[in-house]
């Protein structure tokens, strides 16, 4: 019994004491919030049933009074009550579940953001409300607060699953199929998400952030993201390293160079410095981590498709300075 008490204590401390940044009890979006409410119904039923069954099981096993004969007819009555109880609890669950049937319909085609699951990162495309393509980014999805944003979810590799627990349930990304998800955040903040369907070697660290901003900030962000890189007349060393070494094979910086390898295509880096994290939300975006990542990506995330770069200290510093300026 002590074990259970201890566990219950840990349980409640966890749910309320710390809001882990991927905890679905955060409930920052309407869909996630409804599910938290549903959970409490389910939890109450589960506790009730477990206690009832355990009580009767243990009592039935250890009770000392065995002289009173209980005939099969009385037991039969009990069985009928038991079935009736089970059925009504199930109906309760089914109805509280069906009440939440507001998943996005598949008939609409309009969407603002298209997300493609890659190995092992997230390619993000923005569109305006008329469906015109605006720009590409990666691993960080910015949405305005208090407004429903429709996402189109695809994959051109293997099956991934798009999941931001604080905002909504997960939706798979399947090659050859289109799925949709409506995201809505009730408040500003950064919400972590992660791939939920096993997708190979680096599935564990295929994560991302959804950042919710006030509408005006969101528009500012969007306008900035649409800008291409302004080439300086005489190439800086950092630019030259980017264009002349392996980087540009897989990474695009709009206005400077376009990725040529369509299979090993990597994240668009046009506004790399505006993101808070690198390597699919694995490390904070600062000079130290970025430098370490460029020199030895395989040490950090074994099996990913980015090869190590042999750069001199001077070249690396110039490259980092250049990348750090990509606001």
């Amino acid at each position, binding site marked *: 019994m002590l*074990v259970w008490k201890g*566990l219950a204590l840990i*349980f409640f401390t*966890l*749910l309320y004491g710390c809001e*882990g940044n*991927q905890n*679905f009890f955060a409930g920052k979006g309407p*869909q996630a919030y409804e599910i938290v409410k*549903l*959970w409490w119904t*389910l939890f109450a039923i*589960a506790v009730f049933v*477990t206690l009832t*069954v*355990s009580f*009767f*099981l243990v*009592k*039935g*096993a250890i009770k000392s009074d*065995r002289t009173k004969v209980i005939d*099969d007819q009385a*037991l039969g009555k009990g*069985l009928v009550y*038991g*079935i009736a109880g*089970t059925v009504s609890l*199930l109906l309760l669950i*089914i109805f509280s*579940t*069906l009440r*939440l*049937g507001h*998943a996005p319909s*598949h008939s609409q085609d309009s969407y603002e953001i298209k997300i493609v699951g890659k190995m092992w990162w997230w390619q993000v495309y923005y569109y305006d409300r008329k469906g015109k393509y605006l720009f590409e980014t990666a691993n960080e999805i910015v949405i305005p607060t208090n407004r429903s944003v429709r996402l189109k979810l695809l994959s051109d*590799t*293997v*099956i991934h*699953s798009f*999941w931001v627990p604080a905002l*909504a*349930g*997960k*939706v*798979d990304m*399947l*090659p*050859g*199929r289109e*799925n949709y998800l409506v995201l809505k955040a009730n408040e500003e903040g950064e919400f972590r998400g*992660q*791939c*939920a369907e*096993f*997708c*190979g070697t680096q599935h*564990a660290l295929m994560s991302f952030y959804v950042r919710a901003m006030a509408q005006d900030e969101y528009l500012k962000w969007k306008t900035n993201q649409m800008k291409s890189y302004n080439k300086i007349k005489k190439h800086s060393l950092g630019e030259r390293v980017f264009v002349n070494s392996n980087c540009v094979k897989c990474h695009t910086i709009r206005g400077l160079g376009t990725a040529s390898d369509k299979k090993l295509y990597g994240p668009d880096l046009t506004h790399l410095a505006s993101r808070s994290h690198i390597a699919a939300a*694995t490390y904070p975006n600062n000079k130290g981590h970025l430098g370490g990542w460029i020199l030895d990506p395989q040490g950090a995330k*074994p099996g990913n498709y980015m090869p190590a770069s042999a750069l001199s200290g001077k070249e690396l510093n110039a490259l980092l300075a250049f990348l750090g300026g990509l606001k």
Partner: protein
Amino acid sequence: MNPEEKKIQELEDTWINPPGFIGWLRIVNQTNIGIRYINTSLIFFFMAGILGVIMRAQLSSPGNEIVGPEMFNQIFTVHGTAMMFLFAIPMVEGLGAYIVPLMIGTRDLSFPRLSSFSYFVFLIGGITLFGSLFLKVAPNAGWFDYVPLALKEWSPGKNIDVYATVITFIEISALAAAVELIVTILKQRAPGMSMARMPVFVWSILVMAFMIVFAMPGVVVGSVMLALDRLVGTVFFDASVGGDSLLWQHLFWWFGHPEVYIAFLPAAGVVSTIIPVFCRRALYGHTAVVLSMVAIGIISFGLWVHHMFTTGIPDQANAFFSVASAMIAIPSGIQIYCWIATLWTGKPKFSTALLWCMGFVIVFVMGGLTGVMVASVPFDKQTHDTYFVVAHFHYVLIGGVVFPLFGGVYYWWPKFTGKLLSESLGKWNFWLVLIGFNIAFFPMHLLGFMGMPRRVYTYLEEMQWGPLNLLSSIGSYILAIGFLLFIVNVVWTYLKGERSGNNPWGAPTLEWAIESPPRNYKFVEIPQVNSMNPLWDEETLLPATTGMRTDRREVLITEILTGKIQAVEILPTNTIWPLVLAVATGVAFIGSIFSPWWFVIAFFLVFLAITGWFWPSKPWGEGRDV
């Protein structure tokens, strides 16, 4: 020598197991095959368990580097594949193959050579899987092996070919065992054992066997398509050229969900067998329990989409499968009620076997309730593919299958060996497992709530998953020690165990009417059955017939519903051909990992083996074996 002794001597000679290693390979006797199945699957259980402990060690703290991602992916895939395909299915089949014929009062399974074949195929499959792990080319796309990750483009190595091969082995062996068990149960019951008098355990094996027959074709088709996609470039699953990545999931889960109940139903049958014995009363609600099992068997085929709620299947379809999934709680609840009612009105004696069953009820109820939770579509969208689900299915599979099976092993051990497992060691075994299990798996529910996806080889410190993972790992070590005590118990019993006699528990079913361990012919005379609990209701069992021949392997064939005698069937004797055929099959499938041509070569080998198998020999028993 009096006539009775002469008869027994003749039976001994007719049913003899050939000596020596080659002889061992030729044995077709059902108790030998059954015990091989049980031993082998228990060994695979412990090996897969070690893999589980390695995974827990890797995850005990963030950023651990005990195993890298590639090895971790192979380990969790082999852990899952082995537990489902090499432990759960073969273990219940083995228990069925051993216990069922004794329980229904016959001398052997209907197709003795087929059971030998199915065992060897299973063995080759299991060795292939674990061998591949040592060679570091083990399957690495999870036990449900989703495409397109499992297609050539994304998994160019041999890993997935090994997977396709291994599950093909298990499909063949499971189908063979299922057919065998169905025919044996329907046609070889002792005279007088009508359907209504059939023990619950036999019912559970019957339902399980039918489920295998209906469920396996899904994964047979799936694995053949997968092998063809990989081997010769058909594009069943390749969406970029018109295939469908979701098709695999439908085919796999059509099998994969009933599979859970294929393992669970016999385990529930074990519980329904053990509880009445130790409560000294007949099972309350025999009919209700049997109907519940049949209902579970049927409903379980309408649940598979609940593994796919997040794939974008339309809401209406999801709702149907959601309700069907919740419905399974009703027959499960009925069984639990009947077990509690039996305990309540009986006089329970707390043997280790009964403890396992009681632990099972509580743990299984908890796992069942989280099952009802994830049957709810919106809730599943949050918890699907997280550690919440990992917790859920370990509660259901360890609590619902492993606990009762260990209870069953404790219960039937005297029948297998003639010796009683130590009760005090057994209780340590049980309590350590129960405590370790809960410490290992309860925190996983919470990790799921905190957003930890399953199948991750590592996680970042900032996720705050560290402490609960450490707790869970500690629990898994306790769990492992608990299971090790079982091995200690087996060794101790082998050395010093107490002799059990024929019926140590005072149980009512026919397997306890004969010697422990049973002779190869099991019953000197096939008994006449007049009630559901023959050993409780009758002083001595009367023979149903006289004059069955002792110079050949004869069994009685009875009518399906009523159990009236219909005929005498003569069974084949020991032979090497099942092994030869199993090896030929092995050449075909293992060879196909490397080249499709092996299939052609093996075709001729299989042809030879089958020719040998069916070569007309003297009428059975005219020439006695050895």
